[in-house]
């Protein structure tokens, strides 16, 4: 079996709002798949359907071959979940929380104790294992939630914005653990609105907006798709007329960025030659010249804008 998650034509309405609009994708086994989108894009709704909390209005989804509608319990048995808004039981200790979840997955007593001990040690929570979660910091709670999602050795891990609101150190630890878990051949489905996170962690990214998927590709290819978004920043020693530069057919747009001139182009080498020639003709000196690749953020904003102007 190749894919860990398969989604076909999945749709969900809330009244007039179409939260998820006929989306299709599949996630390969052993992949970290990112679901990147702004607030209200439909990320949480998609995850809730995949994890059996919401029933879709149309379409199908399966996890490790189990249809989430027809065999919800079998599908859920293979996954671990860190929901967007959820908590551990604050009236129980970290240890009790993990045991509770493990039992609900039917993990055998011996194995459960072993997993729980290992996870708590891995995440630096072993010292506080008998303390009530009530007194935990946000970072500790989020680490515990990730432990709870891993206590059954899941095949697929669903994470809904797992690092939102955490400090740099906790974020780093969580990302490290996610990568580590993935290295054992496990699949991760991660939603985020943080480009940096998607770029750093994910093998492939789906960009979602208004319930529709705008693009699915590797971070590198997504950037390459938007080569016209690359630009060159040049600084001359004297003022120049920007109009003269923008006449060049290779330049799609030229503008000032501080005292530099920023020119957008799909053909940087031709433009660099032109700029050097231009400087010679006008007796200017080039003080600096940089070629900038589009960032994932540029791609993201571009794709989302494109979808926005598209008629519905």
């Amino acid at each position, binding site marked *: 079996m190749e894919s860990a998650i398969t989604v076909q034509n999945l749709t969900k309405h809330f009244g007039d709002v179409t939260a998820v609009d006929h989306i299709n994708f599949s996630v390969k086994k052993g992949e970290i798949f990112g679901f990147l989108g702004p607030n209200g894009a439909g990320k949480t709704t998609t995850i809730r359907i995949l994890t059996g909390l919401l029933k879709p209005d149309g379409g199908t989804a399966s996890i490790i071959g189990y249809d989430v509608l027809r065999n919800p*319990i079998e599908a859920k048995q293979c996954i671990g979940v860190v929901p967007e808004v959820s908590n551990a*039981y604050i009236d129980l200790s970290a240890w*009790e929380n993990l045991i509770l979840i493990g039992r609900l997955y039917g993990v055998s007593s011996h194995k459960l104790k072993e997993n729980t001990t290992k996870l708590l040690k891995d995440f630096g929570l072993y010292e506080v294992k008998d303390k009530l979660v009530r007194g935990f910091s946000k970072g500790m709670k989020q680490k515990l939630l990730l432990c709870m999602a891993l206590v059954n050795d899941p095949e697929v891990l669903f994470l809904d914005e797992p690092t939102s609101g955490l400090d740099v150190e906790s974020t780093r630890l969580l990302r490290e653990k996610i990568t580590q878990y993935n290295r054992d051949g496990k699949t991760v489905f991660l939603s985020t609105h943080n480009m940096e996170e998607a770029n750093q962690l994910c093998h492939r990214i789906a960009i979602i907006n208004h319930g529709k998927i705008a693009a699915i590709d590797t971070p590198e290819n997504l950037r390459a798709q938007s080569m016209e978004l690359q630009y060159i920043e040049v600084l001359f020693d004297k003022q120049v007329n920007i109009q003269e530069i923008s006449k060049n057919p290779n330049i799609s747009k030229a503008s000032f960025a501080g005292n530099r001139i920023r020119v957008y182009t799909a053909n940087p080498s031709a433009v660099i030659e032109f700029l050097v020639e231009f400087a010679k003709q006008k007796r200017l000196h080039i003080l600096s010249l940089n070629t900038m690749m589009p960032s994932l953020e540029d791609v993201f904003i571009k794709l989302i804008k494109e979808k926005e102007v598209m008629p519905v």
Partner: protein
Amino acid sequence: MSNPAEQFRRSLVIAKKNIKIYYLKGPVIIFGLVFPLFLALAYIIGRNIPLEEVLPGLIGMTTFFTATSVGPSIVPWETRSKTLERLLCCPIALWTIIFGDMVSSFLFGLVISVIPLLYVLTLNIELLNFIVLLFSLIIANFCFSALSVLLSAYPPTDIPATSQMLSSLVKFPLVFISGVFISVEQLPEWGRIIASFSPLTYFTDLTRQLILEKGYYPLALDLVMIVIFAVIFSLAAIKLHEKTLTKRLS
């Protein structure tokens, strides 16, 4: 995994969690212990009738209040503390959760309502009657706890106090029409009709029959009605919670 036996096992895990967390919460103590205790005292003290006479009503009332004290607030509490979504992600059916909630409410009721039953042992009651009484007490406890979990389904609030209050609005009138204070045969015609819609009526009547040997309905009918109510409440609780569940996800 999805076989009923395994799901049943997992619902006991849920019940155990509820016992640990919710038995000691304020509203449960107030509605489940303090309240029935004072009501019982008010009921016994200052009335010139032998304790034996009031015992059936007392058992009915205690069972009813204690078995319905945990159920109404579990789901609202889990909604509020955002643990419900975590729970729903686990490989368990909704009925597994609902049944686990019922079991924890049931056990609370059972442990407390056995106390007045112990007093029955000091009376001159036949062993067989006592066994039937114990058996009915168990079924009645389950029936009432199912009712209490049903009452937590609507409205889908995340405020435990609201749910407790609304369920009290149902619970109190029920106590007054169920032959706890006045036995069914002393009620006027219309009162008897209303009483026949309450599960508590049949349990009090059954208790009266077994202890005092004067009941209004046949014993078998009492038992069957309690079972029927238990089944209806359980199924309704699962169905209604299914309906309101998505409203609890924020």
